[in-house]
């Protein structure tokens, strides 16, 4: 039995402790390993997964969470200074993103929404590239195939279906590979979406398709409690993780501010999917500490006490407490993390200023993959029109 298989009986336990046990409306149990006090607890299933995380990996988790928080602050500042059209902050959701991102393997493909900057970091997307969209110089910015990290999608939930289709493609590839006796490693897909997006029909349809075809996909819902100004209670009457039961696959609620539990649960889910046992829904129970975007004003719709209560559960603080208490990181480590953060901020600031504004001809070039007469005609008109200005300038000079 490999590490990818659960011990006998645990699947049943899992089903019982997660989705299956809770009737609609009843609170679902939440997997938590590292509490807000920084103490490590245990879980009958997921502690085994947590044990795979060595101290070095824990330090990487901390470093990445700190880096992405620092990046977030820098991007928010850039927006305030008019350098970005909009920014979508992630502060509060670092553990959900860094933990799940690190659970993925390079061959897994990731479909984010628009707030998954932490996952992007883990997948080695250049953070300056990530800002292109928010600076208005690109509708994407990076090559999704380089790191198997898809472009952001602004139409909520649309990508959840793409994720399932992609997973169906992986299934077919595996059959073809098996026929060719290839040693390609098995892959899975993660689809990220929010608690608000969970109300969209596409999420529902994606889960129906995923279940029907037993697709290797992990649905990762970051329940950050707010869809702009609307609380989760308006989106759902049952804990979101419970919904999975209705589709016929496991649903797990995990403490989204506990990077160890998120990693453990996601690793389990990805293995489950890669091994051909079908989809999993993970609900990472977390909180959007700041505004929805830089255009938002949370004071209009929520109490500051709520925000303060969640700050007490801060994902970085609790891992820092643990690392210090266990003697896994010293002052020098934390100083280094701070210094790295400063470096990153400097890099992001300077590269943002330098992001090139594209020529609209690039847009003409990419509407279609194949030659298209209307594009050719409109481009020719544009060239002639532009040339008119150039010759005007020449005459003026």
């Amino acid at each position, binding site marked *: 039995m490999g590490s990818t298989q659960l011990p006998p009986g645990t699947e049943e336990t899992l089903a019982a402790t997660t989705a299956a046990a809770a009737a609609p409306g009843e609170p679902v149990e939440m997997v938590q390993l590292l509490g807000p006090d920084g103490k490590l607890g245990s879980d009958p299933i997921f502690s085994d997964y947590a044990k795979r995380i060595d101290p070095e990996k824990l330090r990487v988790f901390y470093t990445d969470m700190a880096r992405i928080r620092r990046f977030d602050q820098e991007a928010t500042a850039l927006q305030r200074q008019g350098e970005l059209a909009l920014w979508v902050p992630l502060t509060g959701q670092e553990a959900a993103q860094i933990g799940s991102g690190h659970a993925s393997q390079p061959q897994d*493909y990731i479909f984010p929404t628009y707030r998954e900057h932490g996952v992007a970091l883990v997948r080695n997307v250049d953070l300056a590239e990530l800002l292109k969209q928010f600076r208005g110089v*690109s*509708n*994407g910015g990076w*090559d*999704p*195939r380089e790191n198997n990290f*898809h*472009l952001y*999608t602004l*139409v909520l939930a*649309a990508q*959840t*279906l*793409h*994720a*399932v*289709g*992609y*997973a*169906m*493609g*992986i299934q*077919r*590839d595996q*059959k*073809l590979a098996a026929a060719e006796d290839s040693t390609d490693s098995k892959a899975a897909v993660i689809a990220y979406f929010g608690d608000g997006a969970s109300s969209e*029909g*596409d999420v529902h*349809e*994606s889960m*129906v*398709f995923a279940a*029907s075809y037993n697709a290797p996909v992990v649905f990762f819902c970051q329940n950050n409690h707010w869809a702009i100004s609307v609380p989760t209670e308006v989106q759902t009457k049952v804990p979101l993780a419970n919904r999975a039961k209705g589709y016929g696959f496991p649903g797990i609620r995990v403490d989204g501010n506990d990077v160890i539990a998120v990693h453990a649960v996601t690793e389990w889910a990805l293995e489950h999917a890669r091994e051909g046992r079908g989809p999993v829904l993970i609900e990472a129970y977390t909180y959007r500490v700041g505004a929805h975007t830089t255009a938002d004003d949370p004071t209009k719709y929520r109490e500051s006490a709520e925000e303060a209560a969640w700050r007490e559960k801060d994902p970085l603080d609790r891992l820092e407490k643990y690392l210090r208490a266990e003697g896994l990181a010293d002052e020098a480590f934390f100083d280094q993390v701070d210094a790295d953060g400063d470096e990153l901020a400097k890099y992001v600031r300077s590269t943002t200023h330098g992001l090139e504004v594209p020529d609209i001809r*690039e*847009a003409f*070039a*990419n*509407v*279609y*993959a*194949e030659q*298209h*007469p*209307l594009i050719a005609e409109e481009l020719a008109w544009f060239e002639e029109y532009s040339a008119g200005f150039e010759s005007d300038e020449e005459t003026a000079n």
Partner: protein
Amino acid sequence: MATMTIAKAINEGLRASLTKNPKSLLMGEDIGHLGGVYRVTDGLIKEFGDERVLDTPLAESGIVGTAIGLALRGYSPVCEIQFDGFVYPAFNQITTQLAKIHARSLGKLTVPVVIRIPYGGGIGSIEHHSESPEALFAHTAGLRIISPSNAHDAYWMIQKAIECQDPVIFFEPKRRYWLKGEVDVENAGLSADPFKAHVVREGTDATIVAYGPLVPVALAAANAASEDGRSVEVIDLRSISPLDFDTVEASVKKTGRLIVAHEAPTFGGIGGEIAARIGERAFLHLEAPVIRVGGFHMPYPVAKVEEDYLPDIDKILEALDRSLAY
């Protein structure tokens, strides 16, 4: 040469593509064991199995959305939407995602998805089974939209659509599914380029442009007009986006008169686009304003009155008379 119906020609075209390209696959509601409500996919599941011919859950956004994911993974999915009026739940996936992914990724990603939609009226059906929504899609950059009018085109155009690296919406003229015609399965001929219009009847006095289900109507009108000594040219547009204005323009420069006929409502339709373009390109060659013959600005009417709604020979001849009266 073989003689077959349009439905059979599409079936054979799909079969040829599935055979040629191991990464092509079909997906849709009831397309497997039933062979589709129009039997266009008849027998294909037996031949290619349910991994290549998928009876999907009943969810149009799901069909197109997962097809996009499959295409991103290197597959060439062909989706069937059961009826024209049921494409709207997938409208979001088609217009905000499918059409834009190539552009959004600066050309790094391609999504060669084909969406087959049986469309148009004239079959006496009930609500939502007779619509012509092509203009809604034609307005969206990034999509290609074609519609065959005969069996040979149907056989080749579906294969070319599947080969095309851009998303293609393939509108099938459902009331012509049983129209028989010669198909040269060896030689695509003019059908090798599905995005070009064909002059299907030569003439000198006026031009009628039509596509899909109205091509036979336009030809019948031209034949009727010839009995009155009028020589009418008929163009089968075949491709709605891109639209082959060059062929239309060349014809208008010869005849001086243009009538555009389609089943979709006239207002905001493809006919208006053709009229405007030809006005810009061939104004001095026009002897009369471009006249549109199309549906009224109303939901597709109940079957018992659809004859009053649909462009027919008489409506086209009336337009021809008006044009010739200038």
